[in-house]
Each structure stands twice: as C-alpha cells, then as structure tokens.
C-alpha cells in the first residue's frame, strides 16, 4: 500500500499506461488494470464548497487535473479561494495559498 500523505501534502497515483489519476493511491489502475503507477504530489487546489460545524471547517477542494478531495481548512475559507497543503503532526490541512511557488 502506498501512503496517501507525505511530509508536505497528499499523494495520488497516475497510470503510466492510460493516464488515469486517482486519490487515494492505488496499486493497480482502476481504469485499465495496469500495475505501473507513478506517484503524483498533490499540494494546491481551489476551494469548491465549505462547511463548518462540529468537525471544524471542511472543504471540497478541486486540485485540478481531475481530482476532488475533502479536507480540513486551517482558516475560515470561501469558495473560489486558492489553498495549499500543510502537514501538522502527520495531518494534512489546507491553508490559504498566498502565492509563492
């Protein structure tokens, strides 16, 4: 099994044969069954929807290239905002992306 989280963010897998992108990482491509998959770092995205409540602030984040993930925001975000992963105690949070790399 491939870890879904590294020290900076999330890890997805992309199929070398058909290009299918998946999160969390897979050992076989769900589209074509190929075993050769490349790890892809997922670091940035755009907030699509946000909810707040007993679980804190959770967003649906469009990471581009065809991947939607759910995750906690470190701030009071709103749809359309750019966000970036940060890892605290092995836990991935999404914070406001204020430019940079």
């Amino acid at each position, binding site marked *: 099994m491939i870890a879904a989280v590294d020290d900076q963010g999330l890890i997805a897998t992309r199929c070398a044969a058909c290009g299918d992108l998946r999160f969390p990482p897979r050992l076989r491509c769900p589209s074509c069954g190929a075993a050769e998959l490349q790890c892809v770092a997922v670091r940035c995205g755009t907030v699509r929807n946000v909810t707040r*409540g007993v679980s804190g602030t959770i967003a649906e984040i469009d990471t581009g290239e065809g991947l939607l993930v759910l995750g906690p925001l470190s701030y009071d975000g709103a749809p359309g905002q750019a966000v970036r992963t940060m890892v605290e105690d092995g*836990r991935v949070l999404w914070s406001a992306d204020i430019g940079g790399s």
Partner: protein
Amino acid sequence: MVNAFVIGGATSPFSRQHTGDFDDLTAATAWDALRDAGLEPAAIDLVVAGTVHGGEGFGQRIAARLGIGGRPILNLENACATSAVAAHEAALWIRAGEARTALVIGAEALSGRGGKPVATSHSAYDYEGHGVSWAVRYALHAQEDLRLGRYTREDLARVAVKNRTFAAGNPHAQFRTPLTEQEVLDARMIASPLTLLMCSAKSDGASALVLADAQRSVRTGRPRVQLSASSMRSGQLLDGTSRLHVPITAEVARAVYEKAGVGPDDVDVVELHDAFASAELEHYVSLGLAAEGGGGRLVEAMLKSPRTGPIVNPGGGLLSRGHPIGATGAAQLVEIYRQLTGAAGPRQVEDARIGLTHTMGGTEFELESNVCMVHLLERLDA
C-alpha cells in the same frame, strides 16, 4: 409472470436507547408482521434478513426465535438500503416460483455506537485519518445547491418541520414533538447549512414485512398490494473529478416507472431517503415529484394539505421516524403498505393507490450511491 405482493408488515418503536435484547426486539417485530399477514411462522418459505452491524447469522438467530428452520435463510447487507434490498431479493424468489411466502426482516441498534456523527467509509474523497462524517458530505453538496439557488435554508428547515408534523401521527416514530422553522434553524450547527434537526438520528429499531404470491395475497381480506416494479443498482464509478450529471436516483426511478407503466404524477404517497433535509429536496427532483427549484413549494403544499397526495414521508421520514439503518428500508415499505390498505390512521393519505419507496446507502461511489433501491407498489382494485 408470478407477481409478488405485500401481505403484512410491522415496525418496532424506533428509539434512542433500546434496553432489551436486539434479537428479541427483532423477533417480536417479525411476530407482529406475521400476525398482521395472518400467517404462522411455519407458513414462511423464505427468510431474508438484513442488518449492517447486527452480526453474523442474523436471519438464523431470528428464525430460531420464531421456531422455524429447514428453509432458505439469507443474510444481506447493503448499507442504509439493506432491508429495502432484502425485500427486492425476496420478491425475486417469489416471482421465480422458488418461494410462495417470504419474511423480510431489517434491524439495527445504533444508539450505543457513540455520539459523534457517523463517519463514511473509505472512498476516493477520503484519505488516511481524514474520513469525514455523512453530515459533512451532505453539507458540502447542500452548499453548492444553496449557491446555485436550488433551495434556501428556510426550505431545508421546512422539510424538517414537515416530517416532524407527519411523525406526530406515527406512534412508532422516534421524534414526535412538533417543531417550528425557527427552532430548526437555531438548532446546533452540525455541518453548515445542516443543523442537528436537519440530520437523521442514530436509532435502534426493527421492521418486518411479509411478501407472498398472488394466491396467498387474497387471503388477508384487505386490498391487495402488488410490488409492481423494483430496481436497484449502484452509482457509476467516478473519476473523482465531478458529480454525476444524472443522479443515480433519477436513473433507477426512470427504470421503475417504465417497468410499472406509471409516471411520477400517478404516485400518491412516497417514502424517500431523507437522511438529511437537503437530500429530501434533491430526491424530489430525481424522482420527478418536483422540478429543479420547486422543492420548497412542494413542502409548503404538503404542510397545507397533508392528506392529499402526493405526500412524501407520511411516516416521518428518516428525520423523524429515526434511522436504524438496517431497519429503514422495510419500515418505508411497511408505511406504504399501510397507506395503500387504508390502515395509516391519522396520517392516512386519501385514497392512496400508488406508492413508492426510495432508499440509498454507502459511499464507495458517489454520495450515498453504493445502492439506490426504488420499489413501486400498487393497490389492485377488486
């Protein structure tokens, strides 16, 4: 083709803390359903039993309490749609001529499983340590629908008010105290826009249903209720990029309407899967009961004329009847059976002739689309 008929049913009271033995509660409910059908346990050819967390050999455990062995007993798990699918399975056996009568059982005890919102199973949207609750998933969908103007927060509140109003007429519903729109809006925020009173509860309860072939359906002395069409499938495998353009409910409902030769306008009474208030509004559209954006008006009409069809969730829905997941599908079918036989008491919908149940479950695919099960039932006039 041999048709399948509902000939009896029962539910236990749905509650927060069931103190007795889970199997005894379920067996008592099965006895009630058999009495309602006028059958002894020995007259049952097939038992199909559903529970999600109730452990192995569930059907056999209940059959032993009914004093019956020596016949096929199936155990079935399909998330929140478990016993709706169990009824489908039993009907297939009857239609195939493999059983003349079948007992369908569904039960769950959830209240002892902690106070936190129920977490969803691992799926493409979750990742290690970051699985989210059902409430969060529904809330994220609802946020988009609110932004697109499909409904308002007040519409969500009125769904909860309506289902609570209807539950007051159902003695087995868990929540029967009337609510105001403001109380719903002011309740504790679970996941915005969903307040506590817009979320279904972790309940304990059991339901049972008796199905039979045509010959045995005439012996009850009640109007005959045919299970005219059923369809079940799971959602499409998504690439994780976007939502389905056509919700699975719309596809399954279309298949059922086509099989039964009826349309949404013909349906008098519906029990649908309102796990959260937002889901009820979404499913109106998928089931063809309202146009996009028309859910709020339909709720108003039902509150104004609660005896005139189409009525949705006359038994209180998941929101107010309670949601002991394995028991929910059969409880929906029991409600529709009572409605179509004129036995629904103070919540009776006038001259209900065609009824529909809709049950969802699981998250391996899109939201709640591991399973979508829709049944269409018709009262046959003599």
